[in-house]
């Protein structure tokens, strides 16, 4: 905060400055002393009061701060003589904002503006208040008032932006755009425009109304000179012409753009589209980030090229000629655009004329000749490969693979070509279709090549990428593929070893880290996964886009302190940003960057509706509940802070779920887990999953988003379900339950039923059908695996239904094979069945990667916790209170006998389940580390076999033991420090720590349940 100067409320600056200086240097206690002294001299000064409030807030006394602020506000309102100045108001505004009472700040400014009309400074402050509240209509009204007073362009633009925001983010209809247009036109007629951004806004308003010709006219007129960079102007012109379907003119403009920037790929595509009169790309709604007017782009009907053959051919040959000219103009080897252009032209020719001549293939091979050594080659040509027939792909790959791997070191360029060849084989799915033996030798070749070429990087700074680095990524991918197919643990370990080896040599390779953290997560070695994740230094906005690499598995793990840190870090980032976002928007208004003001508001909306943000806001309190579930009172405390779970219900509303945005960047995820909720390694090998082009198509993305919305809906209900279950369990034990059930009790019960219906719907069933499914599972008529969604979701459902049934007694359970269930039975049997199911492989974790440990953890820490809370609530109500009369209590006790029996059975059932888990855990915890080590290392011993894991490890160990003298000192030091046994121990220790943490959680649960048993009357 800068120091403020001047007189405010009649206080001389010299008295005020030391206070601000103290605040700026964070000496708040000192500032408070000074401010109190100031107030004693000027007890009625709203400014002096505002200063004190500001300091109190910074000292962590929000309640006092608020009360002083309100006092200041009263003085402002009551004393007519005082000139209300912006300094006082803005100081108050700062405090109100920090106290999350923007409304009070706004009302101060509204009052001041009402009293002192036409005061621009006050009105700007008021505008700022509306910006903070995202009240676009009020923003507009205030801006118009300022414009009427001062006639300044900036105020007009503020009003126009406010109109646009109503249309884009608010409830405004598109007719409002006409108003904005009219305002601008009128102003321009008498005043012109002086800001380039104002011109951009004007043009965008016209674009949004599809008035392209009008926009073009303005751009070509005097106002067009506001855009200082000719390139920007041409690009805008071209796009407008393309939207207006004046293809010839657009193509000519784009040609000019390319003449000055031959390498501009996006504009080459625009050029070609217009030349061929193909607006399919525009129709698909390719978001034009520059203008953000995604509502406009893509709303036209698609007109695929209707050119005749002759015209098409002639246009294509003009394009080819032009491209050749561009190629002669680019003077260095790094401009790929004009060369890739050939491929694009041939692709269009092929698609349009459905020809299958060899031109596209020839163009591909030519491009390979020139740029095949570059790391980006594969991604450059991906889309062209897709257009080839299967035979053509095979032929191209064979041609490219002819680049020989020689026994001696290849120069960097040739190495690049070999790597491209590997990459292409991987991306076209060729590699993964090889038989296992060939896959293995491919991985070996890649690893050998990496080791052999280490000398190429010997003089590079360790912070620079090494030559051939990606070979280890590719080798790892192949090894994971082998593991998936053969289920041989050694391959999984080798994949881990390869990456750890690479990171020992150069610890900055993020691609290795991401692969490793996913491999460790799969193998339940969460501490190591987390360690590597932390070295990525994921912070600030990366928390939104990259947390998905670690959060989903951590959420279900027993490592609660680390999880709490991750969740808090994310929430702090988001909350801090939302708090400052509006100020940044106002900064854009102030600096006349109007398009940015709009962009900021839209971006904030996007982040506010982030799926991950919703998810974490739900999971953070659920974690707290899990942590405190042993004590009913503590759990109730947490629930109270959440307004008994009501606070989170909003997040489960249809409106919220529909508007969720998915901002995670999945690009860098490993091939076997393209999204957080998919992991191919958990299931059997499926060849269909190998086709890279089919990964994450639009349809799959939509399906995934629908699923995730349902998860949010379901999880957001949890705290409220827990709160209501506790309440209804206790209500059910009040004397004369049904007859005298209070209104609250009845409404709780019906709300619980309603929420259970929603919960069941999110699982894809009605309330009754969901019960039938559970009964079916217990009967053996249904399999757990067949149930949509997660086993734990079904268990939770049963627990809450039981709680509801305690009060309502309405549950009608179908007969299953002649057995009668009551709802307690249902829960007990389900717990037993699911525990057995989740422990079905009694193999230790080390031998069984992909074991569903996390579901076990979730079952124990969630389902069992909720059930225990219901039981605790019952027991608390069953306890004789001092007020109860002894007379008749005998009868009352007897009426509760069946319930007590059911509770006892349930507690026994829970204890038995947890004991099964702890037995399984203990066996693993007791095993000696050395035994585990020799087991792991034995899975990597080849024992003279050619086939099977171990070959790659041999290569790594050979290199580490006797490094090539050419690798240089640094690399050879790193090599010698690497040991496969260390990596194996890391796996063992990591698993041990996870299992031991889980064991502690189970034990403490067991103890609390045993204590519960004692309380059963």
């Amino acid at each position, binding site marked *: 905060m800068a120091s403020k100067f001047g007189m405010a409320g009649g206080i001389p600056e010299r008295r005020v400055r030391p206070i601000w200086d103290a605040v700026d240097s964070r000496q708040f206690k000192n500032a408070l002393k000074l401010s109190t002294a100031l107030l004693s001299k000027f007890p009625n000064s709203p400014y002096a009061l505002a200063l004190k409030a500001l300091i109190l807030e910074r000292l962590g006394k929000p309640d006092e701060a608020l009360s002083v602020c309100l006092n200041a506000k009263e003085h402002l309102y009551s004393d007519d003589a005082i000139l209300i100045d912006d300094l006082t108001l803005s100081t108050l505004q700062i405090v109100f904002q920090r106290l999350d009472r923007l409304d009070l700040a706004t009302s101060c400014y509204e009052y001041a503006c009402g009293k002192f009309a036409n005061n621009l400074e006050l009105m700007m402050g008021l505008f700022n208040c509306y910006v903070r509240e995202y009240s676009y209509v009020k923003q507009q009204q205030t801006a118009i008032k300022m414009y009427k007073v001062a006639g300044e362009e900036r105020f007009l633009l503020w009003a126009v932006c406010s109109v646009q925001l109503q249309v884009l983010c608010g409830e405004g209809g598109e007719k409002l755009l006409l108003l904005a247009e009219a305002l601008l036109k009128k102003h321009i007629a008498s005043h012109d425009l002086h800001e380039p951004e104002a011109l951009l806004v004007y043009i965008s308003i016209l674009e949004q109304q599809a008035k392209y010709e009008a926009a073009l006219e303005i751009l070509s007129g005097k106002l067009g000179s506001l855009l200082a960079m000719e390139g920007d102007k041409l690009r805008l012109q071209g796009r407008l012409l393309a939207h207006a379907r004046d293809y010839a003119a657009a193509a000519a403009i784009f040609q000019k753009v390319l003449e000055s920037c031959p390498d*501009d790929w996006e504009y080459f595509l625009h050029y070609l589209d217009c030349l061929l009169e193909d607006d399919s790309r525009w129709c698909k709604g390719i978001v034009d980030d520059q203008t953000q007017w995604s509502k406009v782009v893509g709303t036209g009907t698609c007109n695929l090229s209707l050119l005749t053959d002759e015209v098409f051919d002639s246009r294509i040959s003009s394009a080819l000629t032009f491209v050749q000219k561009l190629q002669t103009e680019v003077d260095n080897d790094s401009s790929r655009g004009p060369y890739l252009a050939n491929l694009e032209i041939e692709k269009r020719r092929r698609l349009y004329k459905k020809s299958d001549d060899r031109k596209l293939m020839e163009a591909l091979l030519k491009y390979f000749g020139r740029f095949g050594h570059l790391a980006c080659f594969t991604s450059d040509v991906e889309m062209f490969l897709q257009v080839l027939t299967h035979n053509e792909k095979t032929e191209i790959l064979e041609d490219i693979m002819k680049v020989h791997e020689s026994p001696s070191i290849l120069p960097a360029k040739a190495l690049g070509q070999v790597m491209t060849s590997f990459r292409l084989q991987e991306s076209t799915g060729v590699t993964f279709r090889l038989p296992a033996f060939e896959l293995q030798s491919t991985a070996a070749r890649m690893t050998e090549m990496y080791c052999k070429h280490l000398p190429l990087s010997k003089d590079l700074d360790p912070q620079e990428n090494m030559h051939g680095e990606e070979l280890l990524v590719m080798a790892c991918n192949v090894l994971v593929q082998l593991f998936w197919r053969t289920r041989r643990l050694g391959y999984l370990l080798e994949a881990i070893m390869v990456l750890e080896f690479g990171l020992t040599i150069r610890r900055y390779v993020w691609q290795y880290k991401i692969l490793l953290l996913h491999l460790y997560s799969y193998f339940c070695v969460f501490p190591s996964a987390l360690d590597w994740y932390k070295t990525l230094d994921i912070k600030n906005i990366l928390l939104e886009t990259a947390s998905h690499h670690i959060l989903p598995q951590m959420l279900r793990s027993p490592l609660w302190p680390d999880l709490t840190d991750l969740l808090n870090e994310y929430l702090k980032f988001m909350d801090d940003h939302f708090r400052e976002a509006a100020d940044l928007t106002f*900064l854009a208004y102030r600096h006349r960057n109007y398009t940015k003001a709009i962009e900021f508001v839209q971006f904030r909306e996007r982040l506010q509706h982030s799926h991950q943000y919703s998810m974490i806001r739900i999971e953070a309190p659920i974690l707290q509940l899990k942590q405190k579930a042993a004590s009913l009172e503590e759990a109730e405390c947490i629930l109270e802070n959440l307004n008994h779970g009501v606070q989170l219900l909003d997040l489960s509303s249809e409106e919220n779920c529909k508007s969720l945005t998915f901002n995670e960047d999945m690009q860098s995820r490993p091939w076997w887990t393209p999204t957080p909720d998919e992991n191919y390694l958990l299931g059997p090998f499926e060849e269909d999953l190998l086709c890279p082009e089919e990964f994450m198509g639009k349809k799959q993305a939509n399906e995934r988003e629908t699923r995730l919305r349902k998860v949010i809906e379901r999880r957001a209900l949890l705290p409220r379900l827990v709160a209501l279950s506790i309440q209804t369990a206790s209500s059910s034990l009040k004397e004369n339950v049904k007859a005298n059930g209070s209104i609250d009790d009845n409404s709780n019960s019906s709300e619980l039923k309603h929420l259970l219906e929603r919960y069941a719907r999110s699982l894809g069933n009605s309330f009754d059908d969901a019960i039938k499914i559970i009964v079916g599972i217990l009967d053996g008529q249904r399999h757990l695996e067949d149930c949509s969604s997660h086993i734990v979701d079904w268990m939770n459902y049963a627990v809450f239904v039981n709680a509801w049934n305690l009060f309502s007694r309405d549950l009608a359970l179908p007969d299953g094979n002649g057995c009668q269930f009551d709802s307690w039975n249902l829960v007990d049997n389900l717990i037993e069945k699911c525990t057995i199911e989740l422990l079905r492989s009694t193999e230790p974790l080390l031998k069984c990667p992909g074991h569903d440990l996390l579901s076990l953890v979730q079952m124990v820490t969630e389902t069992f916790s909720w059930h225990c809370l219901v039981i605790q609530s019952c027991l608390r109500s069953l306890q004789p209170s001092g007020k109860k009369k002894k007379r008749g209590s005998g009868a009352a006790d007897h009426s509760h006998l069946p319930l007590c029996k059911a509770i006892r059975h349930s507690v026994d059932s829970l204890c038995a389940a947890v004991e099964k888990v702890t037995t399984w855990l203990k066996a693993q915890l007791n095993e000696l580390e050395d035994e585990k080590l020799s087991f792991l290392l034995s899975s990597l011993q080849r024992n003279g076999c050619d086939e099977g894991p171990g070959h790659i490890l041999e290569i790594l160990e050979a290199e580490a033991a006797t490094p090539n003298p050419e690798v240089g000192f640094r690399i050879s030091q790193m090599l010698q420090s690497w040991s496969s046994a260390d990596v194996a121990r890391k796996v063992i220790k990591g698993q041990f720590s996870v299992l031991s943490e889980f064991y502690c959680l189970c034990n403490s649960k067991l103890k609390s349940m045993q204590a519960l048993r004692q309380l059963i009357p």
Partner: protein
Amino acid sequence: MTTIRRFCCNDLLRFSPVNFDHLTETFNMSFYMTYLARWPDYFHVGEGPGNRIMGYNMYILLELTTASYVSAVMGKVEGQGESWHGHVTAVTVAPEYRRQQLAKKLMNMLEEISDKIQLGFCIEKRFLSRDKAYFVDLFVRASNMPAIKMYEKLGYIIYRRVLRYYSGEEDGLDMRKALSRDVEKKSMIPLKRPVTPDELEYD
């Protein structure tokens, strides 16, 4: 295949593969957005085909290839009189697009803009028009040898060392390159001694 365009907010959600690189700092939101709010013309991104960010330089350069964003450039113009210069705040290029002289293109772009553009600044109620800049400067970590070498190749010299510039720990090097307006290349005469951060003229 570089498309250079203005960096926008949504690009913040797409640059993670670039920012994973340990030499690339992920600044806080206020930093990026203040730049966007004040100097949107100095913050560009390099976009590759398939709309991936290949890298960025807080200035400009976009490489449009089927892959990713190439790079974004952030810069601003500051100073008065002969100290009017363009400042490069951040440069980064994604690993797979390195060794293709993208950074060179990026920096050229920045210099071109600093060289040519007429900027209007409004300070309070006055409108001041500024002329072309004299030089471009940037800070780089003293340990970041790859970057230092790259800038030297592009014609930058080490103007001065700023002690403990980075979080009070690591030294920074202030590197400069004169533009056409600085005919005598006065801005590139290196200082004889290192300075401390509080001696810096601009924040």
